[in-house]
């Protein structure tokens, strides 16, 4: 064989095997281009595909294994799901990164609060408040960078511990709202008909009221206020939003081709809802959950600010600190209002940024 090979490093003599198990990529491989006609001796003049095939056929086992390895390395890893795909896009978006950093820091602070905070949030430093007159408050001193509240508790430590409360209320309120909303939306979207009409009119009523007003009403209705009434009120307010969202995408899924195809396969209605319609509808809801988190934080803070939150004065909570300490001493030490207000705003912003970026990343129109 004097045929000059196109591939470098093919010095091995051909091993006598005939079938070339070339790594076939895609179905284009089974429609062989070009007839193996006129030039059976395999001289220059036949197609590149044929030449390549022959040169692979001549490769030694070692080289061929290397070729397979290369083919595997260049092929994309199997099973990149919708979510992993979205995650990849998310990582390239600066807005998402800013949001994720804020959210990440917030969560870390909340989890490790006892380690980060220099003092116990309920410990009273009497030396700070000993010489105070009415309507004055200790400012920043060594060891107490944010000063203390009128009871002599370290404000900085209370801020750090406040993040736990915020995270707790936010997570629970969002989860409860998500669960109830998804339940309602899925039922409405899956059954349609009068069930849908009744449930959606119900959500209309709830959406017609301003969400904070509704939350205040719910808390006021409770016989005894605790942090659970706040969580519940904030959760209920978000239910109609989740329900609407899910119902809408369920209805769109109902008309989709793959649901029709599943019907054509005789898939049971229950499985069509649970395995075909619901998973495809959840993306919007997941994004909404992140945005709802921001709203939940703000609403919970607002309720505390208004004095409708947890009556336990020992619990550090940003909304309460803003409402009680910040408001009362605003003319003397406005920073006592600034710290919790800023914390609330930044955390809510973080979740909003992340949510918006997720909405963008998960949008099927951006997929490629």
């Amino acid at each position, binding site marked *: 064989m004097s045929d000059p090979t196109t591939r470098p490093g093919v010095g091995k003599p051909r091993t006598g095997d005939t079938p070339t198990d070339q790594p076939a990529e895609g*179905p284009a491989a089974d429609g062989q281009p070009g007839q193996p006609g006129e030039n059976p001796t395999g001289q220059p003049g036949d197609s590149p595909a044929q030449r390549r095939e022959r040169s692979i056929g001549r490769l030694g086992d070692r080289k061929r294994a290397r070729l397979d390895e290369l083919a595997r390395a260049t092929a994309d890893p199997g099973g990149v799901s919708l979510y992993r795909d979205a995650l990849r896009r998310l990582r390239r978006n600066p807005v998402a990164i800013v949001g994720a950093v804020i959210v990440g820091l917030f969560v870390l602070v909340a989890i490790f609060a006892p380690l980060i905070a220099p003092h116990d949030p309920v410990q009273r430093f009497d030396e700070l408040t000993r010489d105070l007159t009415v309507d004055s408050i200790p400012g920043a001193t060594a060891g107490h960078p944010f000063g203390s509240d009128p009871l002599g508790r370290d404000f900085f430590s209370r801020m750090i511990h406040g993040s736990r409360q915020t995270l707790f209320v936010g997570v629970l309120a969002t989860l409860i709202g998500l669960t109830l909303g998804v339940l309602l939306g899925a039922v409405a979207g899956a059954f349609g008909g009068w069930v849908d009409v009744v449930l959606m009119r119900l959500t209309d009523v709830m959406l017609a009221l301003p969400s904070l007003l509704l939350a205040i009403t719910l808390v006021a209705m409770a016989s005894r206020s605790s942090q659970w009434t706040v969580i519940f009120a904030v959760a209920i307010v978000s239910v109609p939003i989740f329900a609407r969202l899910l119902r809408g995408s369920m209805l769109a899924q109902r008309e*989709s081709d793959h649901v029709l195809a599943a*019907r054509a396969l005789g898939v049971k209605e229950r499985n069509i809802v649970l395995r075909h319609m619901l998973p495809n509808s959840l993306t919007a809801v997941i994004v909404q959950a992140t945005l709802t988190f921001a709203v939940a934080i703000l609403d919970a803070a607002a309720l505390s600010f208004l004095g409708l939150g947890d009556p336990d004065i020992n619990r550090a909570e940003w909304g309460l600190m803003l409402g009680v300490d910040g408001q009362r001493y605003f003319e003397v030490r406005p920073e006592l209002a600034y710290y919790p207000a800023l914390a609330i705003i930044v955390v809510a912003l973080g979740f909003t940024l992340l949510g918006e970026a997720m909405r963008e990343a998960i949008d099927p129109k951006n997929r490629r």
Partner: protein
Amino acid sequence: MSLLDVRDLSVVFQRRGERPFAAVDQVSFTVEPGQTVGLVGESGCGKSVTSLAIMGLLPKRGNRVTGEVLFEGTDLLKLRPDDLRDRRGRDIGMIFQDPLSSLNPVIPIGVQVAEVLERHRGMDRRKALREARELLDAVGIPDPDRRLTEFPHQISGGMRQRALIAIALACKPRLLIADEPTTALDVTIQAQILTLLKQLVDETGTALIMITHDLGVVAGLCDTVNVLYGGRVVERAARHELFARPRHPYTHGLLSSVPRLDSPRGERLHAIRGSVADNIPWVEGCAFAPRCDNVVDACLDGPPPLEPTATGGDLRCNNPVSEEVAVP
């Protein structure tokens, strides 16, 4: 007994405040076991609605389906929804036009193939996945092990359609309905998919209803061909008969419109005059009359009947193209 005997199938869409519209109008045809039958016609002639009506997949509201769809003697239109659901996917498989949107985007291919096996053949997930691998292999998907775990957007259009075919044939149905299975694919892949379909149909003995507007697909695949126009069958003939001697002016026009490699350069492509929008209702006369070159007075005196021809087919025309005029 025929495998499928469609008798006087009509689908009328009704919307409040609008005139009812018969998308499918007294369509009758039969499919013998193992046979490949074509339903041909342009957009809006009722091809897809016919297939959806056979499968019982039309929306529950807004339409009225009449006639009989006898599958091995059982009228599918009279079956309870649960019984019909048991038959779909098991006795009758279906392949849709757009392979991407017909696959569930959030479920791996393997699970989608396995789902139908679990549903109709009572397999557990492990066994079904093993079987799914064999099926993907059988429809010519390379590296089936890897494809099992991949999602629809990760594989090519041709492979997606192969996967859909694997799903449709998973339970070895006796009838397969392919609704324009190659329309969304490019030409080279179309040819592969058709070859594959033909091979699978031959191997398994599955009867096939091929719904298409592409006469090339019909020529390569079908035993008999039903030409639909305006929701009615206008001509039915064996494949060779239809291509050699089209009798209905519509069929003749369609065949003349196929571009030919040996026609002189610069010659204008033949086209049928007008568009479907020109149709007149069948009760008034022949729906095709406004576009027909052979139109005679009788064409506007009411619908021409579907009558048997000497060659064993059926024809609905007052003034058919004479048998001597072959397609140019």
